């Protein structure tokens, strides 16, 4: 599974989307269970491949929905589906609902992770370290550069 994912990612990074798709489809034919991440990569390859004749446009969405049917809380699938609605189908309404769902799921996970790390710091280092970390928790969780760039983009548009 991990080897298959690694192979898919390598092909994807080399922009060999068609080869990655072939690999995924072979795996789909052989395996009984497909991990949602494979389906997410499949949808990405489907969107970027230039060989658009062998697939339907609807396969992109279907692949993401299939991933969510397997695991409805699989965040990459929710986010990709949301971006697909926002950028490809130009449906910001549907995208917003999905993004909200993803944020809620991420919030739970990131809160858990931050709490865990703060407890580690308190145990290993000092209470001050842990408190400092919690004070800057927002800075750790978001890519501030991207947020600032987006702010400027929205302001100038």
């Amino acid at each position, binding site marked *: 599974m991990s080897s298959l994912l690694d192979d898919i990612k390598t092909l994807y990074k080399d922009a060999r989307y068609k080869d990655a798709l072939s690999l995924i489809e072979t795996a789909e034919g052989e395996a009984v269970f497909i991990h949602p991440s494979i389906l997410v990569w499949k949808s990405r390859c489907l969107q970027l491949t230039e060989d*658009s004749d062998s697939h339907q446009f609807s396969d992109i969405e279907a692949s993401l929905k299939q991933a969510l049917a397997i695991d409805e809380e699989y965040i990459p699938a929710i986010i990709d589906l949301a971006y697909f609605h926002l950028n*490809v189908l130009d449906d910001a309404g549907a995208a917003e609902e999905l993004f909200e769902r993803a944020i809620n799921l991420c919030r739970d996970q990131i809160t858990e992770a931050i709490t865990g790390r703060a407890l580690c710091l308190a145990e290993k280092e000092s209470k001050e370290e842990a408190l400092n970390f919690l004070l800057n928790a927002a800075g750790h969780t978001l890519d501030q550069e991207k947020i600032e760039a987006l702010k400027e983009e929205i302001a100038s548009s």
Partner: protein
Amino acid sequence: MNKVARANSERGVSTLELTLAMPLVVFAILFLIGMGHALISKQHAVVGGQFAAHYQRVRESAPDAAAAGRAVSAGTETFSLSGGGGETLSFTASATPRKGLIARLYRLNAANSQYQTPNVTNACVPDCRPFDSFARMLSPEMITGIIFSGNSSGFSGDGLLSTVAGTGNRPPRQRPEGAEAVSPLVAGVAPAAGGGGGGRPPGRPPQGAAGAADDDGSGNGGNGNPRPTPRPTASPTPRPSPTPTPRPQTPREPEKPARDLISGSLKRSPSYHSELEGYTQRELEQMARGRGPQAQRARQMLKLIKEGERLRNK
């Protein structure tokens, strides 16, 4: 004058010579016909580009390539149209001959032409008062003003027109930033050298009204309107890019047309508009700042480009 009879061996037989020369004559005629057809296609592309630009300017909606093709060439050519724009409308029309023996036997290149015009409406509707200008011209104040301005600085075409039209103290509406003003009188007598065809919209001051560029690089000219003052839109590239807007974004390729930035699958999205595929990302951004359906389509195309960028960065 002495008549000299030629020997039989030196005499020609005109019929035979004509027959021998016939292939050359036929070839020359066919060549001329072919050139004529090429010129017709070029002219159709020029007219199609003009039609599209003015259609968009006046009706504020994208023209239909099929309708434009039927109008300019009655369906004898495959006609395609791409373009749009914000402050400057720019349309590229391509006409590929598809009727006739040569067009059927060989794959001919399309004749391309680009036409640009400032995106302004000169119509006075609904406040048209066509005789106001006559009343102003014939008013005693105006005549006195003309006489005095003539006495003080001599009669110049520019000054006179400016005084009569009352536009002397106002900034010209249609002048692109950085362009120099040209008097209609000067522009009217400017030599029409260079590419054939082209032209400015009727009744329009010359500023900013650009002709076509030879964007196919064939060297057979566009429909430019060379004029003595420098134009801000004149550049070696076929289509002048709108003012670049620096934005803190991920690296991108602003000079590539949208069709190269959007992957094959995403081209089947309902957000993909083939009439805008020739525009660069920068031009689409400029276009997207406007209003109306064209701006909406530009925004959709930009979203597709961004989606591709986002996925490629995974």
